[in-house]
């Protein structure tokens, strides 16, 4: 109880309570996340169960009975007769899972390499930072595409579909580690020369312990900010890859896959296939992004 009260009184919580944007963004993000996590219980249909689909339900407009089967769907159906509302919930599950996993992957990799570069300095630092520079000179989606393509080449054809989602996570994660590494390296170099670190060294604390117990906690603030904004970017990167048709399998559509399917039918008047998934993706990315913005401001002492 004491602890909760202390949290309520903290600077962060105060800032949150006084930022309507942050509150709205949190509510929207939570609704989408809950909907995605609870999809098997919330969604009226399971769009990933191909056997339960009836092709004749395809292209049903929202709220209007299908001309062949007479079934009605809240947001209509896509070209395979999948309920769009259920597919958005299940699709958001994939988008969020890939987003979170990719962020965790790039965060762990970026922090590790950043700490190594900042602590060791010298040629290790030069090498890692030059690699980072080279990678920064390419758009990250291009790097993700490249890694995805190369990885598929190495995986035996029979395994590809099962590991597709993990390949996607690694591709997006590898394309994004640089942001973390650069921030952590800078912070680590500053902390390294501070007196408490010097003191720890003098009394003979093991370097690994110094890095993990003393330096790491002091660089986590900026990392959390990057991670939040990175989550929005990773979700969009996944949607982009799926939109390009290289992401998750077509029988398990994510939000990007749904948008890809929908854009083929824009001209023929089936607007609902692209509109609802696009709105869902927009709300998800925007709310996470706004949360990240708020977090950055709240953690920045100069803006307070």
């Amino acid at each position, binding site marked *: 109880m004491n602890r909760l009260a202390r949290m309520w009184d903290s600077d962060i919580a105060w800032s949150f309570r006084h930022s309507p944007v942050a509150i709205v963004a949190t509510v929207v993000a939570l609704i989408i996340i809950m909907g995605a996590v609870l999809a098997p219980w919330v969604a009226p249909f399971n769009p990933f*169960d*191909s*056997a*339960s*689909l*009836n*092709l*004749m339900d*395809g*292209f049903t407009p929202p709220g209007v009975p299908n001309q*062949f089967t007479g079934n009605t769907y809240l947001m209509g159906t896509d*070209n*395979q*007769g999948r309920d769009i509302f259920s597919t958005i919930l299940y699709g958001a599950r994939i988008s969020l899972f890939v987003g979170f996993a990719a962020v965790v992957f790039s965060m762990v990799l970026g922090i590790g390499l950043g700490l190594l570069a900042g602590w060791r300095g010298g040629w290790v630092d030069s090498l890692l930072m030059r690699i980072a520079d080279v990678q920064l000179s390419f758009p990250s989606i291009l790097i993700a595409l490249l890694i995805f393509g190369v990885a598929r080449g190495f995986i035996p*054809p*029979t395994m*590809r*579909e099962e590991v597709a989602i993990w390949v996607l996570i690694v591709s997006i994660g590898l394309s994004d580690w640089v942001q973390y590494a650069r921030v952590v390296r800078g912070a680590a170099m500053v902390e390294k020369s501070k007196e408490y670190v010097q003191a720890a060294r003098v009394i003979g604390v093991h370097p690994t312990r110094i890095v993990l117990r003393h330096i790491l906690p002091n660089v986590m603030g900026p990392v959390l900010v990057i991670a939040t904004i990175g989550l929005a970017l990773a979700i969009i990167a996944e949607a982009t890859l799926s939109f390009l*048709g290289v992401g998750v*399998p*077509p*029988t398990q559509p994510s939000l990007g896959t749904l948008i890809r399917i929908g854009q*083929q*039918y*824009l*001209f*023929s*008047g*089936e607007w609902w296939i692209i509109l609802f998934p696009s709105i869902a993706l927009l709300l998800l990315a925007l709310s996470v992004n706004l949360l990240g913005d708020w977090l950055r401001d709240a953690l920045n002492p100069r803006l307070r």
Partner: protein
Amino acid sequence: MLSKLHTGVFARTGRAMLMAGAALALTMTGANAETLRWARVADALTLDPHSQNEGPTSTLLHHIYETLVGRATDGTLQPRLATEWMISAEDPTVWVFKLREGVKFHDGADFTAEDVVFSLDRARADSSGFKALHSAVESVSMVDDYTVHVKMAGPSPLYVQNLTNTFIMDKGWAEANDVVLPQNFAAGEENFAVRNTNGTGPYTLVSRDPEVRTVMAAFGGHWDATPAVTEIIYTPIAEAATRVAALLSGEVDVVQDVPVQDIARLQQTDGIKIATGPENRNIFFSYDMTSDKLISANVDDNPFKKPEVREALSLVIDRDAIQQVVMRGQSQPSAAPLPPFVNGWTAEMNAYGKPDYERAAALVAEAGYPDGFSVDLHCPNDRYLNDEAICQAMVGMLGRAKINANLVSQSRSLHFPLIEKWETDFYLLGWGVPTFDSAYIFNFLVHTREGSFGSFNGSRYSNPELDAKIEALATMTDLEARDAMIAEIWDKVMEDRVFLNVHNQMLAYAMKDNINLDVHPENQPKMTTVTFGN
């Protein structure tokens, strides 16, 4: 600046002329200058008539050059530069062609037998894209000015079917302009014939800007009746939506390659009409029915080897649903693994029943898989009309018979090698039949894979008895006995369920509603067949 001024002036004069033309058309219908603006997905790769055996290239060249025989919209052969063709009575390995008299090339030269000999030799050169179609030719010789003999290596009763895209050019013109050999396209070579033409065709080339615009005008000295369209402006537009928008805005008059989902909207648009017709291409599933174990299945044997499972597959496919929803009516559902144009097709093979999921699930259980099985289904996603959507629908249908298919859909450059290298258990394929004869299907898809046979036989099907019959077809000259042999082969192939056919593809052309143009089975429309008026 100057050029801009010029275009402006030209555009204005052009418009004035058009208005004058329209006024004339109102007063004295028929026999007027009519311009047709034609758009499709891609441009001709070259104008050299023997360099590239490729759809858009041949389609455009058919307006400038002519072939010995032509393919009518119903698929039959029709006389073009040859008026008669037959196998020589004395020697079954010799084809005799009687040529049309009084034909002139665009530059005024006379068309004679030496031009045919020259062109058929040119089409057999190393850099020619048509040499495979003439591989059985031993020599071509001129008998008199209007008779040509083609000597084959052995009896080749169907050789004439291979000639529908082999154009005839003028020997004198080719020699004068140093284009005796076809352009070597793969080596990036250019020659005079790539941008200049001299054919006998109904249109002459007026101007050409590759990938942008090609203008052709009716040739006054053509042997046939003057076509209704006297000027053609050909514009390639790669993006489907832009192509359709160009028609809607009145920028073009005819659009080839219309996406199926846009057909309904175009049909409802005032002033636009759609012509649809079957393409000479069928779309089917096939599977490894021979190996002892599949690559991707979760069972230790090969379910497709069991007739019960193959029968179950034929019971789960709902062809009518695929036609109505996935293809929006733009297909001819069929159980026969060949299009109706092809010699050997019968209505009995075409017939199919309603899906029966319970019976299918029972058959799968009977075959020894009470819990079903899982397998990868390979599919292209950029080759046939809605190919990926067909496969997705199939995955759902298979699921009802407890066959859990994992869909792997990818670009055609990755998909086709899987079939050629036997790396897929279950796949979608489409097959066009340029010779309009079943032997073409048997050679590639049914014959055991050996030598030049069976390169697309992904089912690993191998039946020595059938192989012998298929090989015999190539040299049979008694066409009745040959047709009976084709029927026998199909009976066995259908009985063994080597293919699970889905449908024949339909083509759609969209045009202004005062234009009449029929769909061509090989997607090679000829603007000479266009008529105006409703």
